[in-house]
Structure formats: C-alpha cells, structure tokens
C-alpha cells in the first residue's frame, strides 16, 4: 500500500482550520439561547418541571439517528467510491453518535424515574434507542480493533449499511413487541401534545446540539486525517530504515 494520496484531505484540513472556530462560536451562542429558554420554560401540566429533561432527551435521540445516517452516507462513499475522506467521516462520526445515544438513554432513565417511578422501562422508543446503542458499539469495535484502518473502515461500512437497513425493521419489531406486552395503560415517552412554549426551547436546543455534533465531527475528522498521516509517515520511516541497511 503506497502512502495514501492526501491531496483532498489536505484541502479539507485547511477548510476545517478556517471554519471550525466560527462553528464552535455559533454552537456556543445557540446553546446559550437554548439553555436560557429551556430553564425558563413553563412546567408541563402533567409532568411538572421534569419536562425540562425532554430538551436534552429528544435532541439526543435525533442526533443518535443523524449520526447513523451520516455514517451510512459515508459508508456508501467508502464502498462505492473508495474515497479516503469517506472512511474518515464514518470513523469520526461513530463515537459522537454513540455518545449522544448514551445521553438519550441516561436522560430517558432520569426522566422515567420521577414520571413513572422506575429508572428503566422497556417502552418502544427507549428500547429501540438501546438497540441502536448496541449497533454503535459494534461499529466502534470494527473501527478501533482493525490494524489496517482501510480494512476496518470497509468492514465498518458494511455493518453500517446493514444496520441502516435493519434499523427500520428493528423499530417496527420493537413497536409491535411493546404493544404485545403492554397492559392497557400506554407508557409513551412522548407525553402530551407539545405546546408552543415548550416547542421553541426544544427546537433551539435541537439546533444547538446539531451544531455541536458537526463541530465535534469536523474536529474529529481532522484528528483522524492527522492520525492516518502519522501512520503513513511511520510506515515510510520503517521503510527508510530497512532500505538504509547495507
């Protein structure tokens, strides 16, 4: 394997250096607005103040899915076009998506305790998110245990796409399973219809988290490119030593 062609990634690095500070600043700004709105949002008539947890839980769920969607597009880039930036994009997105999925699970659990009395319920949404988290762990395992980053990326890409196809099936199955075993009262994490005084903080927080995702993703992609460069240089260095011997 020759030293990978870093032409496009180099341009990409320059792009990231320029854009990242501004993106980070924008993220901070939107978070400030969102948090202010979230803290001052009125209490829900059913759930009381704990509805404020929803401002974290719902965006986190959305980001978990966005992460997988992003990884799926990157996977196509890896398998169909063999674009090295696609490998990097997928590998960088995985830990971030997994982290937000974890946030979704934890906040969901903390929301459930005051609302329904238990830390965990096997309702359709939480269970689907849990399965998504397991799939993330699988992909992470493939990315990070491969000695050859290219090979790991290709294997992870296959699993990502298989997961993308499977996720709707899993969601459908879990929904069905939930209605099968549910007594008359339906535990739904969605809660009552969303009032506009709650909707706006929710949307702003969702935007803030999305901006955060892309900020982290660009930075992580930059790091991954640098990591691959290090690996290529080290391989070259080893080669030079081998050739220098008489």
């Amino acid at each position, binding site marked *: 394997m020759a*030293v990978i062609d*870093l*032409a496009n990634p180099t341009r990409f690095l320059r792009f990231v250096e320029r854009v990242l500070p501004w993106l980070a600043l924008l993220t901070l700004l939107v978070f400030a607005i969102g948090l202010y709105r979230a803290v001052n949002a009125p209490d829900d008539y059913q759930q*009381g*103040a*704990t509805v*404020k*947890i929803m401002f*974290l*839980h719902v965006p*986190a769920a959305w980001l978990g899915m966005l992460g997988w969607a992003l990884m799926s597009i990157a996977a196509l880039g890896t398998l169909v076009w063999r674009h090295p930036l696609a490998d990097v994009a997928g590998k960088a997105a995985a*830990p*971030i998506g997994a*982290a937000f999925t*974890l*946030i979704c699970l*934890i*906040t969901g659990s*903390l*929301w459930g*305790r*005051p609302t*329904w*009395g238990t830390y965990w319920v096997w309702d359709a949404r939480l269970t689907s998110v849990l399965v998504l988290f397991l799939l993330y762990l699988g992909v992470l395992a493939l990315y990070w245990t491969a000695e050859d980053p290219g090979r790991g990326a290709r294997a992870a890409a296959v699993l990502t796409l298989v997961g993308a196809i499977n996720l709707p099936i899993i969601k459908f199955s879990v929904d069905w399973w939930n209605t099968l075993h549910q007594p008359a009262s339906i535990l739904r994490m969605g809660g009552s219809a969303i009032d506009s005084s709650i909707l706006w903080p929710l949307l702003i927080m969702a935007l803030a988290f999305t901006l*955060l995702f892309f900020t*982290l993703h660009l*930075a*992580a992609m*930059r*790091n991954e490119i*640098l*990591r691959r*460069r*290090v690996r*290529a*240089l*080290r391989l*070259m*260095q080893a080669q*030079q030593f081998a050739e220098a011997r008489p």
Partner: protein
Amino acid sequence: MTMSFAQEAGFIVAAYAITAFVVAALIAWVVLDHSAQRRILDDLAERGVSRRSQRSEG
C-alpha cells in the same frame, strides 16, 4: 410517585449534569487527540521524515 419539587429538581439537575459531562468528555477527546497527533507529526518532521509532497524533487 408524586414527588416534591426538590426531588424532581434533583433528577433534572442530574440529567443536565451528566449531559454536560459527556459533552465535555467529547470535547476533551477531540482537543487532546489533536494535540497528541500534532506533537507526533512535529516530532517526525524534526527527524526528517516527511511526505513526498513536502520533499524537494530529485
């Protein structure tokens, strides 16, 4: 199952705190990884190992 506001607040604070912690961990990972890679690259450059596009021709 009806909780006092103080108990409820505990869960809300915990949720925000844990979220902040995870986000901080992500940011830390990205920042520390960056400086680690940069350090290695600088070290390699010092030793004269460089990419072919940086080496002079011939």
